[in-house]
């Protein structure tokens, strides 16, 4: 069998020479025959029969018939497409568009959600639901749960790193902090060097990318010093190429031991849950079995990590925490949590677009097939088998879609990279491999098969099934006109309209949602405030030095010409990237039941903060310079807090307390300010209390403050501010952005979805109206004689125009009805992603329907007008 195959292959590789050999051999045969028959006196020629057929039959021994046919069909398809370049170009463009959209989104989806971690036997990994735990919990689980081959804790944080080790070129970098078990658990085989051990507190393992980029991939990188913030680390090893950690979407450049930047006391704290837990199951242990074992030891783990001094109700809350195991094959990623849902939505939307594109291509092929009915009937009549013609039509579609998909794949991978760069903000550096690997290639091949089959099968069936005589007799005056019967083409157009309307409704609803988000009042002058985020602790400032740095910064900012007002605060407006500070409060010393929800958002601000950000003081006074550490504690609250806790009495003069025991602080309410958003635009109005920065230094410890600068020309002042920070300390990295930019970054998901849904809706609309136009244009040209006759008999142009418009509106109407039903049905899947809008928002749906109707009648108008202005004499002559 194999030998036969090889000989056959050999023949193919040398087909031309083999054919020549055969021809020569047969020529010799004929010559010999001729000689003999001459000798015998007969006439030689007729004796050999059909020589071409004989040669064909001899050759056919070597080739697979189907392969030969497919090759012929393919060439024929290319030739016939080149003969109709407009048709081919449109069909190619449609397929390319749909493939690009699908592969673009599918590529991201694959990278973020589907793909396995690039480690050995990733299917044996599990992560702990919830998903953050304290270090003591990790060690307890490690020593009490024997189901794991390895278990480690990890977290990814953004920090400033200097690869030169001198501390002068700090760059913002993602770093993975992990316990040393990460290396054996993930079975990481380092490119060079060694992993860090439990006792190493200053060792670091850098990524392959950093090793190549900053150390020239030299083995001498091992042992070199890097700085992370103000600490020095020694490079111990380099991760293998392609390893990115355990969080798809993020690619940390360095792995540090958790003991590197955290003291033993930090690690021992049971109150901060900051580590994600991931483990590898022992061989032979299933995830259910491991989960059951975990549930059995969990209460003991929690009990052993409670603080002795914990009040009972806090203890009850702590003990009530639950966890469980989740499959860790694809890792665990906050980026996935953030973008996973929008990506799923986009997958749904591009699938709809793909369906519209399939219907469009099917329609085009159908129109072409109908136009070729005579040719096909002739071929059937002279003996071509139906299956053969059918196969040829399919091959043509396959050639078309493959070419289109190849273009689409290229555009799609480029668009994926573009989408990744759009999703990357200063807060989150998205690192995703958008290179279309073999998975995407396989996916595209499957997609091409799907598109060709779905779009080519119905037309091919229809065209080859028709009766012979009908096709042969056809003279361009087929079937009845318009609505009197339903053709496959009309159904396809109605389907296109329906699917396009679903996409349009989605686009409209998401646009409405976005405009609702953006119309939320942040409560501050977003365009006129510059937020300055200096990372002084990264440059080693601590304690009094840090305070001095902040004070000098504020002084110099206030001295800047052009800066109308400046301030310092813990949290800038729209703090979503910096977290939040919430605490339970006591009012006027009266303890409330623990069930009462008394959580309040806190910020600490310097004098003139409210003036700087543009928040109006409603009553009382601002934080002032005399509110120092030694002075009585004061607090300014917002109107929401006043409404919530002091609905019928003035809040001024009342006292609120935070903390317990020795750390308890009593604060007098001295002012009330207007409401402003705390973390995001979408959040409900929070109750916020503003403390004085000078009175919260102890609470704050060695954490950075941010500065706000109010100016009319924020761009000009931005450069000046950068100079100020550099003059103060050139080592301090700083980020400078307006509040408007912060709002844009915090609404990236909403804007991305609205933009992409709009683009997909627009594309679908375009395809649907092209389908409608094509159908009517085709009908007008094929029924020109009938229309001419009507006009000749006295039909007014207006009534002809209306006839076609009505046709278009009826089709569009049917599509719209189906589309609306679909949009309402699918609405529940997107409800959670909408802000202050329901999926059935009447205004959005009405807008979508209006656009569709408008475009449908516009698409019908051109062919309809051509019909109305037909010259009956010309039209009637054309066919006779």
């Amino acid at each position, binding site marked *: 069998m194999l030998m036969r195959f090889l000989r056959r292959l050999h023949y193919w590789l040398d087909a031309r020479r083999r054919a020549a050999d055969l021809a020569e051999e047969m020529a010799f045969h004929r010559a010999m025959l001729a000689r003999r028959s001459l000798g015998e006196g007969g006439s030689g020629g007729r004796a050999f029969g059909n020589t071409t057929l*004989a040669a064909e*039959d001899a050759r056919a021994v070597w080739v697979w018939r189907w392969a030969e046919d497919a090759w012929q069909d393919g060439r024929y398809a290319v030739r016939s497409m080149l003969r109709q370049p407009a048709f081919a170009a449109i069909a190619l463009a449609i397929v390319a568009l749909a493939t690009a959209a699908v592969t673009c989104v599918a590529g991201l989806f694959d990278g973020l959600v589907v793909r396995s971690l690039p480690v050995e036997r990733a299917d044996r990994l599990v992560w702990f639901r919830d998903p953050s735990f304290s270090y003591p919990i990790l060690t307890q689980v490690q020593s009490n749960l024997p189901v794991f081959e390895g278990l480690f804790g990890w977290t990814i944080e953004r920090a400033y790193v200097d690869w030169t080790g001198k501390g002068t070129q700090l760059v913002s970098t993602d770093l993975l902090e992990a316990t040393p078990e990460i290396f054996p658990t993930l079975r990481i085989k380092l490119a060079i060097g060694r992993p860090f051990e439990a006792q190493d507190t200053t060792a670091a393992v850098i990524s392959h990318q950093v090793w190549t980029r900053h150390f020239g991939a030299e083995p001498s990188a091992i042992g070199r010093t890097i700085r992370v913030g103000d600490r020095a680390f020694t490079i111990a090893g380099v991760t293998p190429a392609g390893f990115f950690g355990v969080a798809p979407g993020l690619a940390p450049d360095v792995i540090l031991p958790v003991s590197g930047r955290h003291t033993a006391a930090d690690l021992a704290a049971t109150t901060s849950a900051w580590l994600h837990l991931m483990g590898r199951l022992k061989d032979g242990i299933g995830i259910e079995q491991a989960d059951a074992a975990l549930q059995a030891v969990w209460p003991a783990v929690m009990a052993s990590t409670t603080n002795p001094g914990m009040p009972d109700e806090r203890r009850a809350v702590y003990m009530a925490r639950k966890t469980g195991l989740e499959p860790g094959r694809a890792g665990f990623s906050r980026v996935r949590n953030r973008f996973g849902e929008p990506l799923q939505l986009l997958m749904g939307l591009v699938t709809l677009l793909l369906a519209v594109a399939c219907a469009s291509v099917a329609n085009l092929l159908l129109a072409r097939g109908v136009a070729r009915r005579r040719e096909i009937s002739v071929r059937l009549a002279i003996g071509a088998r139906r299956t053969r013609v059918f196969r040829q039509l399919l091959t043509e579609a396959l050639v078309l879609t493959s070419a289109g998909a190849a273009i689409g794949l290229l555009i799609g991978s480029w668009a994926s990279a573009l989408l990744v760069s759009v999703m990357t903000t200063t807060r989150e550096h998205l690192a995703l491999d958008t290179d279309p690997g073999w998975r995407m290639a396989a996916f595209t091949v499957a997609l091409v098969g799907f598109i060709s089959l779905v779009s080519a099968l119905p037309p091919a069936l229809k065209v080859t099934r028709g009766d012979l005589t009908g096709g042969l007799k056809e003279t361009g005056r087929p079937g009845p006109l318009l609505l009197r019967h339903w053709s496959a083409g009309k159904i396809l157009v109605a389907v296109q309209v329906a699917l396009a309307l679903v996409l349009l409704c989605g686009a409209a609803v998401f646009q409405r949602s976005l405009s609702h988000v953006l119309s939320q009042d942040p409560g501050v002058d977003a365009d006129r405030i510059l937020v300055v985020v200096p990372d002084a602790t990264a440059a080693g400032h601590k304690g009094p030095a840090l305070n001095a740095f902040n004070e000098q910064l504020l002084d110099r900012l206030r001295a800047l010409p052009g800066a109308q007002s400046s301030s310092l605060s813990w949290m800038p407006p729209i703090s979503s990237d910096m977290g939040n500070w919430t605490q339970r409060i006591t009012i006027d010393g009266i303890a409330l039941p623990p069930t009462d929800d008394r959580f309040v958002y806190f910020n600490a601000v310097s004098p003139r903060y409210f003036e700087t950000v543009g928040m109006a003081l409603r009553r009382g006074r601002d934080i002032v310079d005399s509110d120092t550490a030694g002075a009585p504690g004061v607090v300014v609250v917002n109107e929401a807090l006043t409404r919530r806790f002091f609905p019928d009495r003035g809040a001024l003069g009342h006292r609120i307390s935070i903390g317990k025991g020795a750390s308890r602080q009593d604060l007098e309410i001295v002012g009330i300010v207007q409401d402003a958003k705390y973390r995001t635009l979408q959040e409900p109005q929070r109750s916020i209390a503003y403390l004085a920065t000078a009175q919260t230094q102890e609470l704050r410890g060695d954490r950075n403050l941010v500065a706000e600068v109010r100016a009319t020309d924020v761009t000009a002042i931005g450069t000046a501010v950068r100079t100020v920070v550099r003059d103060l300390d050139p080592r301090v990295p700083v980020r400078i952005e307006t509040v408007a930019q912060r709002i844009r970054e915090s609404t990236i998901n909403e804007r991305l979805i609205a933009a992409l849904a709009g683009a997909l809706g627009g594309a679908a609309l375009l395809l649907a109206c092209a389908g409608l136009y094509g159908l009517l244009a085709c009908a007008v040209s094929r029924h020109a004689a009938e229309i001419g006759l009507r006009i000749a008999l006295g039909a007014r142009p207006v009534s002809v125009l209306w006839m076609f418009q009505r046709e278009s509106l009826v089709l569009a109407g049917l599509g719209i009805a189906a589309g609306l039903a679909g949009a309402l049905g699918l609405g529940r899947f997107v409800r959670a992603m909408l802000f202050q809008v329901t999926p059935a928002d009447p205004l959005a749906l009405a807008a979508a329907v209006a656009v569709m109707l408008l475009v449908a009648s516009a698409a019908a108008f051109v062919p309809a007008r051509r019909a109305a202005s037909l010259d009956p004499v010309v039209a009637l002559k054309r066919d006779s």
Partner: protein
Amino acid sequence: MGLTNQPPDLLPGTLDLLILRTLVAGPLHGYGIAERLKVISEDVLHVGESSLYPALQRLLLNGWVKGEWGASENNRRARFYTLTAAGRKRLAAERQEFERLVFAIQRVLDMA
């Protein structure tokens, strides 16, 4: 399809057998094979080009014969076919099968 020159009374597959048998004596070119069959069968078996050459190609593909170019008796270039070891084995097997078949047919025809 009715266009072949193969004698209608030739059983399917027998042509391959006959060709292989003619090659036992030594290499022959295509025309030579046809002539030999005709002469030996006393003008009963006329094998035309349209069945001879596909059959030869089939034998080449299966590796039962191999073709080599040489000079013919009148000094023209011609491809001479030689029986391979596999071809010999095949011939023996086919011949046995054929004889079994012929014997069986004979028995049916001879029944009382």
